[in-house]
């Protein structure tokens, strides 16, 4: 593969950033849901 370093860095940055954002969002959701009464967090 030509330009492998650029290609793999680009794909890695995208995958890593999205994975980090997902992990942070899910963790924050779990923390916050403990503080909210059950009747206010039903997602249907």
């Amino acid at each position: 593969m030509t330009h492998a370093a650029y290609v793999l860095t680009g794909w890695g940055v995208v995958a890593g950033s999205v994975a980090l954002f997902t992990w942070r969002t899910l963790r924050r959701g779990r923390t916050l849901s403990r503080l909210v009464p059950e009747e206010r967090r039903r997602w249907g």
Partner: protein
Amino acid sequence: MTTIAPAGTGSRATLVLGWLSLAGVAALAALGLWWSPADVVQGDSVRLMYVHVPSAILMYAGCSLCALGSLMWLRKRTDGWDTLAQASAELATLFAALTLVTGMLWGRPTWGAYWTWDARLTSTTLLFLLLVGYLALRSVPASADTRARRSAVLGLLLVPNAMIVHYSVDWWNTLHQDATVAKLDPTIDDLMLFTLFAGMVVGGVVFSWLLTHRFRVAWLQRQVDEVSLDRAIVERRAEADLAGHGSTR
């Protein structure tokens, strides 16, 4: 039938979307990094297109949803629209940053430079800074109504800025290439075109999944703020009652 409240922001719909996202990303990686051919001129650096273009489209989608949420909040004044604007602005910021980074990595082997003050690159940077400003404005301490009003005004400005980014390659003489796929007869290999569309579809699924979770997190934060406010009011009233009784003795 009673439903059990979830311990996070997940639901059956997000579970399905989450698995679809994972499968889609795996398929896209196989297509983009292996099956699709290298470009005759650009070589394998063209594989960056399959993450760069979808990132840019998701940036536009985030900006449009933020502007929609802002407009609807100004009309309806309901929390849901402001929450949508907040969640989509955060995603738009993430994908704007990824558009810039992947564009720079693609620019180095193609143009010979990571950065040039080209109209497309400069306008995208300005849009990214506007999004960062939007998120900063949301974090300024204020009442929920004031914060929503301020952010809604700024949120509406995202659409003209996104349009400037999109049309910059037509309005100015730029190094960045013109629209390739928007043409009726795009001059691109069939498998490359298929992979690019696959990237957009997978990006759309991932975006929907992330937006749903981010919206619910913002919604939970609002509930926590309301519960804290209610508790603080009850405590102040109790203190005032106690002080009132003390002064009448």
